[in-house]
């Protein structure tokens, strides 16, 4: 047997194993469920209820009415207005209040402080990832102007939205004791308007970003090796990576795609209460929006650290569009090789960077 036959056989075996695992999972749910349905004839629950509350033991209509009112069922009201409701009592409010004032503010606060502390720990104990061979003095284009504009537009609006959003969530705890009620109310008023107007623009930019970078972010086997090697942050090795390394791909898929879409959709529904959203809907969207945003901001601390303080020579890629050839070889070797293979010629750096070690004009090794 040749090598290709062996690997094909191995692939086939792996595929059949996956399929049988999936089949076992599906059947383990479907079989007991099918049995229960067959036993009850599909309407067991209904039948039981009808038997329990038959004609001979009908409930009192008055207590039914109060029970319905207590459960939040609507009645009739002559008053009209956008915020007039026909329910005597809404039960979701208390749930939302307890969620927001309890776990959301408490654990959200811990999350952000924890993420900042983690970044500080990494900076203290791992430190800046230096260029292993200094600067080559030759640069290569990493980000096209449009990619940079979009990145910085998203980055700026993200920070604006984060500050205004966090002000609304934590302001009462953190800012009112410092600023006082009047100044904070003025700030929150501006913040709310800014948040509502910047939000949609941010969402459009996020969508464009997804479209622009999705083809570079397809997961590959090399990404697993990148993670196994600690991404070059932990440990001495410099794992291989294409245009986007494994970590950047996680930031893309989890941060931009999943969090971006969840924040954008929930934000849109909160921003435009014009589609018949109920109080329960708005409370739910607010909860989703807040949880996702907090996770995203915590994740963002890591992204911002790695792109600026954490990695020597990374930020200039996004500011000038060009990176040092040695940086490219160290952090994105596969992408660099592709670019060179495509015939891209590295150019002389315009102004020699301070403290460069490599000989100008000659890439080291």
């Amino acid at each position, binding site marked *: 047997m040749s090598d290709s036959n062996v690997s094909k056989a191995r692939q086939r075996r792996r595929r059949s194993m996956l399929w049988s695992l999936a089949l076992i999972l599906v059947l383990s749910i479907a079989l007991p469920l099918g049995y229960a349905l067959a036993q009850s004839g599909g309407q067991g629950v209904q039948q039981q209820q009808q038997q329990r509350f038959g004609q001979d033991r009908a409930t009192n209509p008055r207590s039914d009415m*109060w029970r319905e*009112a207590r459960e939040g069922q609507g009645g*009739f009201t002559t008053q009209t207005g956008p915020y*007039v409701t026909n329910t005597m009592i809404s*039960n979701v409010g208390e749930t939302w209040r307890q969620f927001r004032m309890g776990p959301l503010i408490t654990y959200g606060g811990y999350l952000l402080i924890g993420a900042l502390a983690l970044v500080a720990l990494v900076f203290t104990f791992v430190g800046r990832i230096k260029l292993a061979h200094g600067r080559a003095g030759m640069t290569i284009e990493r980000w096209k102007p449009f990619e940079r504009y979009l990145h910085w537009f998203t980055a700026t609006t993200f920070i604006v939205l984060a500050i205004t959003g966090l002000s609304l969530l934590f302001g009462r705890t953190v800012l009112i004791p410092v600023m006082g009620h009047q100044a904070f*109310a003025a700030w929150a008023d501006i913040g709310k308007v800014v948040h509502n107007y910047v939000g949609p623009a941010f969402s459009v930019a996020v969508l464009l970003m997804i479209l622009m970078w999705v083809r570079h972010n397809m997961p590959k086997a090399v990404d697993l090796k990148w993670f196994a090697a600690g991404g070059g942050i932990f440990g001495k090795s410099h794992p291989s990576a294409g245009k986007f390394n494994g970590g950047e791909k996680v930031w893309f898929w989890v941060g931009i795609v999943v969090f971006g879409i969840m924040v954008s959709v929930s934000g849109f529904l909160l921003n435009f209460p014009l589609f018949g959203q109920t109080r329960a809907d708005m409370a739910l969207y607010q909860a989703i929006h807040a949880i996702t945003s907090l996770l995203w901001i915590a994740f963002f601390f890591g992204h911002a650290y790695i792109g600026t303080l954490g990695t020597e020579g990374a930020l200039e890629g996004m500011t000038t569009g060009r990176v040092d050839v040695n940086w490219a070889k160290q952090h994105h070797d596969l992408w660099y090789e592709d670019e060179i293979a495509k015939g891209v010629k590295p150019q002389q750096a315009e102004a020699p960077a301070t403290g460069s070690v490599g000989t100008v004009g000659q890439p080291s090794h």
Partner: protein
Amino acid sequence: MARMKFLCDAERCIECQACVTACKSEHEVPWGVNRRRVIVMDDGLPGEKSVSVACMHCSDAPCAAVCPVDCFYTTADGIVLHDKDLCIGCGYCFYACPFGAPQYPQQSAFGVRGKMDKCTFCAGGPETAHSEAEYVKYGANRIAEGKLPLCAEMCSTKALLAGDGDVVSDIYRQRVMRRGGRPQTWGWQAAYGNA
């Protein structure tokens, strides 16, 4: 010190809407804003009941708890009021309130809300009592004149009771004892807890 409470006796309410009209007129509440509304359950069916609902001035008010700018305060009489100069119209109190009391004057483009408006128990707001600013923002201040809320004063069947919680519950208890049946202090559990 009195602890002000509302109680609507559903056995007496005839959904005449006088409380709603009195409130609108007394405070010159704008269109689309309803500080008080009457809700009819099982309308036109046997067992039909109506209840007049407004801000209940809760002991542990959810609106005050969730307000991001902390604009709510409770007076010495237990009346929950808010400062419209601080309110940013975020709508959180409307999500949190069990009684649907918070209202917003504007529904302009993109659903932008104005400053929240709600029942003040006819106690005005943080401005100087009986000032022009107080009337424009919060309506009349009858409490400062020693009067009780107009909705309850106007109520023809005395279904809607407003005043010191002890007095209100005393009146209601006597009614229930005389007419029989069970008490239905609707909304009291949610608003005032077990106090």
